């Protein structure tokens, strides 16, 4: 099992009071799966995604990814772990506006022990995979929303991470671009065997996934 979640709980403090966001979540995700986390706003789906991605820590429970108890890692170790194991795709792309498409894709490789030539080869390869070989020198503001999200996907996969987490990857896109992005995620999952965990509130987007996890009020309602 790639991701093992046992009795996971998380709460935030709002106005001096602890507000539970996730309670007693138990979930397994297999390697090579493509999961859609669904649920209404405030159901805790993004929080669960953040915990799996190692950018937030649970209050209790265990969370193992590829055999590593990531909740027990220090901040520095967690940063190193994310650099190697997690690829991020965000709703608003989160590209560095001062870097070109190529430089944005190269960004995660800066943390890997690779030569400049190796970085170049890998970044160019993934940019051509997402169909942006001719846009490498373009800055994010010179690209459409769909193209920016493709750059973000290229950035997410370039370091060959263990899992790819996508938070509403089509939330800011028109229908055509959204379909394009979902098709690309499916390709990554089917052809390259990437494990993808995607948060979405869009039922159509969720259809692209192999399996569905539904959350409501911080609890796992159905897993199929």
């Amino acid at each position: 099992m790639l991701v093992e979640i046992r009795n996971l709980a998380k709460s935030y403090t709002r106005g001096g009071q602890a507000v539970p966001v996730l309670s007693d979540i138990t979930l397994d995700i297999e390697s090579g799966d493509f999961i859609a986390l669904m649920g209404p706003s405030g159901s805790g789906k993004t929080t669960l995604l953040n915990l799996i991605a190692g950018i937030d820590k649970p209050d209790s429970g265990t969370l193992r990814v590829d055999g590593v108890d990531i909740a027990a890692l220090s901040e520095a170790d967690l940063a190193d772990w994310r650099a190697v194991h997690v690829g991020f795709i965000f709703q608003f792309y989160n590209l560095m506006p001062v870097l070109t498409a190529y430089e944005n894709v190269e960004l995660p490789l800066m943390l890997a022990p690779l030569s400049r030539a190796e970085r170049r080869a890998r970044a160019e390869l993934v940019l051509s995979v997402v169909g942006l070989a001719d846009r490498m020198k373009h800055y994010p503001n010179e690209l459409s929303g769909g193209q920016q999200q493709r750059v973000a996907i290229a950035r997410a996969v370039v370091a060959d991470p263990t899992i790819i987490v996508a938070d509403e990857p089509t939330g800011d896109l028109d229908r055509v671009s959204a379909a394009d992005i979902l098709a690309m995620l499916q390709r990554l999952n089917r052809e390259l065997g990437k494990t993808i965990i995607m948060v979405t509130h869009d039922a159509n987007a969720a259809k692209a996934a192999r399996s569905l996890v539904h959350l409501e009020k911080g609890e796992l309602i159905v897993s199929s």
Partner: protein
Amino acid sequence: MFLLKLVFRNAFRHRLRTLLTITGLAIAVLAFGLLRTVVDAWYAGAAAASSARLVTRNAISLAFFLPVSYESRIRAVEGVTRVARSTWFGGIYQEPKNFFPQFAVSPAYLDLYPEFVIPAEQRAAWTRDRKGALVGRQLADQFGFKVGDALPIKGSIYPGTWEFVVRGIFDGADSGTLTRHMLFHWDYLNETLRKKTPRRADFVGVFVVGVDQPDNAAAVSTRVDEVFRNSLAETLTETEQAFQLGFVAMSDQIIAAIRVVSYVVIVIILAVMANTMAMSARERTGEHATLKALGFGPGFLAALIFGESAAIAAVGAAIGIAAGAPVAAFFKQAAGIFPIFEISPDTIALQVACAAVVAVAAAVVPAVQAARVRIVEGLRSIA
């Protein structure tokens, strides 16, 4: 390399804001340099003064003169090698804004000031001409005086128009020697006073006294003053440097104020710079969170902020320092009150130090905030 690329692109992504900050910093660094140079210029006279020469004046005040008869008695004091008369003339050349110092001196004066270098034939011509005047190179350059020029000076302490002829131009032995003044014969002044106001004749402003060894200066001073103790005009003898510093001390509070203002300018630009860096860091909270999510550590984010601050400060300081020399030259020409007005290497070092302090201090809080940004909260700021 990658860090530098990101630093420079970040620094100039809000061009107007960055340019305004750089402009402010350049002006602040320039103003700091000029204010420090004003202070240095104030002390230039004292710095150029010798500790091997003594100045004997009336113990009550400079406003009271000493009888010329004191000269021979001072010369007789053990350790004294030479004595020269010097009286402040305080005249005006053409109009008040052309002010420059004039001194009525005896010929021995030039022997006491070897730093005033004058061709032998010009000195001889000056000695022969009762109305002859010697002008310093800085003064000659400022007003275009040449040997042979008539030089009429309107007296303010000694009324009337005094006619002089430039007989020589003396240079400074080194760049620190002030040569923005005029010397003429004390005898010419005294003879004229004897005719017009005999009551004022046969008095000297100060005696410049040469000593056999600089180490003996204190002992000779004491001996000179001892000679005139309980006389009608008691003397106060001190080194020329102490004498000059006495003048500077009269402006102590002004100098202190200038010094304070020079640092206030830096504090103000520090606030402006800190504001720029705080705004930049706040706007990029989402980017910092993204970088952290990708695995970049707090140190990298702090380095981004410090680097950006350093880049802006370096450009601003470089412009401010580069502008210093031409602006100082213009100020020297326009103001005309400081014979030496050059930004010193020490001042440039201080300018660099101030810019470095501004760069670091302005970035501390934003850098700490960037390093500590919580990824989840930072990412939420984008939405």
